């Protein structure tokens, strides 16, 4: 038994590529090298900027929900870069491998779709939406923080811990080849003996525990921390979707944690839950996984629905059409999403009546979703439209999402599903839901709330270029897959024999490159905006003539969000304040504000959890055990800490707030139509109430 478990020299990717050189191995080594260089580059950059101290005290140890939200989004952007490059690599391979094995080994290709899927779901989409909710929701309900700031940071760092494991798999050993759903018995010890599946298990477990905690945090915050007067039905729609998502997280993440734990027991301790023989039954896994998996897709999509609702109302200058019906539809979707999971395994052996029941339930979800689409359209009708990048992404979503929804209804019919399940038709369908229905929403959210977080707008020109590339890329990359899928092309294929498919594959390849261009131009947009931040500055904090509370505070908001917690008595609370001419008026009194102190405990927990997962993956038992003890040690030590919060004196709050009010009152008022020009001062024109 070696000190490093089963980890040996030849498991390191660079050594492996040296020992059996091939293009496939060289690419793998390149990816490992990129991961190492990326980490080193980041460290050098921080050192060069002399920013270690700021990074440590202001970010890594911070419990501020806004900082945590931003860090989640940074994580998502790092991970999407990797997963998107992997997607392009798969597409290049497929287009090169018609009647030819191509340049990637089968094993490498299988790892690519597994890591792509796993990262996109657990380390891109989930962190992105969690980050946006974290940033926006407390501001929108007029709260100073989440209910459990420390647990919030623990969730973040557990997710980062999982992401570290994903990255480590680029360098040490190799990842699972079992797809993002990791079905046994293939992922059991007898068919997948290596460390790949173990990486998957621990990375996903950390992320899902983090998400469960986040779900609890969001739900409690919404129930307990709303500003006085803000009834549930005064909440902005985004907060309703956050509430629905938190409920889904609480109930849906646990089946996944149970499933990964059982799979781990099968692999490590020779349990027989999911094995072929000895009384095991993999259908229990399929059932548990999709008990999580279907609600998960609504976890992914609902926050974007919330963002779109905010975008359509803000950039149309009208109150949301059919608010109550949207709330109702959101809550219906939340409940219905627990009644349809079987549609992911229609073809796996149950009776026709069960398939029929779940098929019908699935089609029912189309109703509330359809309601939403009409509400959004009607919100725009006769509105005072400002065609911002956010609104462009949202409009592309409206059109594209309907196509994806319709193919979903088609797939909900078990008879049809028997023909096209596991085909590229399915791959086209779910990307058609996830790219417009999740990614575009999150990008739109960044466009809308970036000025709130940093005090300057994002460059509109690069935003539009990016929107164009994302849209064109999406259609080119995924529409051909519908055709191929109907023609019988299966998913997860490294190469094809039929030369007729080559043109479709070529189109999809070009589309994938356009999508990569979409991401690159998005990053370019950040860069250009940072450089032009003077011209783009919106010091007033209300660049879009916003309707909800967060626009009434400074940009960036103070740590405590609101100098005085606002009193709310209607929906569109900030619009009401502006209409009544009460915006930027000074409050009568201030009070001391108590805020949590920074702590390194959550960061330590996340890193130790990653170490524990690494130890378990490589059978380095001492490491796993020490890390595990360390985690609980940190939790126990923390509980002895008495001074966990600090008080910001009322006088200090008053000084900051009065100075800000003074500054805003001096700003020119920006008319709506000037919102996208340098004339935007961040103080909206207080015209007649809309």
């Amino acid at each position, binding site marked *: 038994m070696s000190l490093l478990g089963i980890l040996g020299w030849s498991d390191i990717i660079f050594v492996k590529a040296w020992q059996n050189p091939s293009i496939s191995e060289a690419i793998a080594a390149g990816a490992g090298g990129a991961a190492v260089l990326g980490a080193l580059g980041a460290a050098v950059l921080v050192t060069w900027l002399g920013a270690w101290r700021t990074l440590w005290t202001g970010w890594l140890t911070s419990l501020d929900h806004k900082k945590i939200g931003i860090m989640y989004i940074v994580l998502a952007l790092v991970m999407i870069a990797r997963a998107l490059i992997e997607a392009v690599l798969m597409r290049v391979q497929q287009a090169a491998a018609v009647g030819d094995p191509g340049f990637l080994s089968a094993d490498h290709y299988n790892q690519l779709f597994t890591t792509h899927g796993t990262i996109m779901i657990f380390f891109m989409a989930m962190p992105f939406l969690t980050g946006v909710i974290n940033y926006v929701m407390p501001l929108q309900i007029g709260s100073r923080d989440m209910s459990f700031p420390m647990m919030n940071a623990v969730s973040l760092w557990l997710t980062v811990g999982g992401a570290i494991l994903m990255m480590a798999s680029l360098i040490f050993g190799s990842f699972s080849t079992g797809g993002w759903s990791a079905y046994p018995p293939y992922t059991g010890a007898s068919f997948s003996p290596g460390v790949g599946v173990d990486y998957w298990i621990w990375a996903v477990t950390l992320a899902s525990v983090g998400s469960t905690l986040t779900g609890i945090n969001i739900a409690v915050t919404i129930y307990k921390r709303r500003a006085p007067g803000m009834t549930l039905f005064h909440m902005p729609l985004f907060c309703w979707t956050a509430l629905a998502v938190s409920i889904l997280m609480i109930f849906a993440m646990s089946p996944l944690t149970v499933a990964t734990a059982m799979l781990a027991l099968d692999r490590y301790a020779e349990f027989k839950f999911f094995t072929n023989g000895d009384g095991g039954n993999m259908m229990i896994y399929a059932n548990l996984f999709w008990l999580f998996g279907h609600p998960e897709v609504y976890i992914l999509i609902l926050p974007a629905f919330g963002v779109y609702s905010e975008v359509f109302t803000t950039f149309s200058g009208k109150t949301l059409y059919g608010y109550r019906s949207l709330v109702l539809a959101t809550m219906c979707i939340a409940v219905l999403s627990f009644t349809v999971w079987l549609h992911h395994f229609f073809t796996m052996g*149950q009776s026709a009546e*069960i398939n029929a029941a779940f098929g019908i339930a699935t089609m029912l979800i189309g109703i509330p979703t359809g309601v939403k689409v009409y509400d959004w359209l009607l919100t725009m009708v006769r509105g005072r439209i400002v065609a911002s990048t956010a609104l462009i992404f949202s409009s592309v979503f409206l059109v594209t999402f309907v196509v994806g929804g319709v193919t979903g209804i088609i797939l909900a019919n078990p008879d049809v599903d028997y023909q096209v399940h596991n085909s590229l038709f399915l791959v086209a369908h779910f990307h058609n839901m996830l790219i417009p229905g999740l990614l575009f929403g999150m990008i739109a959210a960044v466009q809308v709330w970036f000025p709130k977080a940093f005090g300057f707008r994002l460059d509109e020109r690069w935003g539009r270029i990016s929107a164009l590339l994302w849209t064109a890329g999406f259609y080119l990359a995924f529409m051909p897959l519908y055709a191929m899928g109907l023609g019988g092309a299966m998913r997860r294929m490294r190469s094809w024999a039929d030369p007729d498919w080559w043109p479709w594959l070529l189109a999809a390849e070009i589309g994938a490159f356009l999508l990569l261009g979409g991401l690159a131009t998005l990053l370019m947009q950040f860069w250009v905006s940072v450089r032009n931040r003077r011209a783009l500055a919106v010091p007033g904090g209300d660049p879009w003539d916003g309707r909800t509370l967060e626009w009434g505070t400074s940009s960036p908001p103070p740590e405590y969000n609101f100098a005085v917690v606002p009193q709310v008595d209607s929906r569109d609370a900030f619009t009401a304040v502006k209409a009544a001419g009460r915006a930027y008026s000074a409050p009568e009194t201030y009070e001391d504000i108590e805020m949590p102190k920074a702590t390194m405990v959550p960061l330590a927990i996340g890193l130790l959890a990653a170490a524990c997962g690494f130890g378990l993956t490589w059978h380095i038992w001492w490491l796993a055990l020490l890390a595990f003890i360390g985690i609980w040690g940190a939790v126990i030590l923390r509980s002895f800490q008495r001074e966990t919060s600090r008080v910001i004196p009322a006088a200090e709050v008053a000084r900051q707030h009065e100075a800000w009010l003074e500054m805003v009152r001096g700003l020119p008022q920006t008319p709506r139509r000037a919102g996208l020009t340098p004339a935007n001062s961040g103080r909206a024109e207080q015209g007649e109430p809309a």
Partner: protein
Amino acid sequence: MTGPRNEEEHEELRRERRALTIGAVQALILTCAAFAIPATGLLTGLAALAGIALLGVLQIAVHFRWFLHLDLRRSHRHDLQLVLFTVLIVTLMVGGSIWILFDLHDRMM
């Protein structure tokens, strides 16, 4: 030591202790009853199962009422809604799983 604040806290503590005692006694009675059914042979077969299930449900209600302070008063409506919602979701998940897995089991026989 007899400030108004202390008086209040004292009252609160007394009420709490009373609730916990009542709850503990009721829970104990229900538990004993559940054990008594098979032990005494009072009910048999399906009737015994139904009886124990009923006692189980009552047990849950007692826990909610006395230990989690859940009742129909307005201020507790939210908590009650959450519990009912949880029951709904858990029923869907567990019920559906049982339905599916038993069906699969039967078809594999």
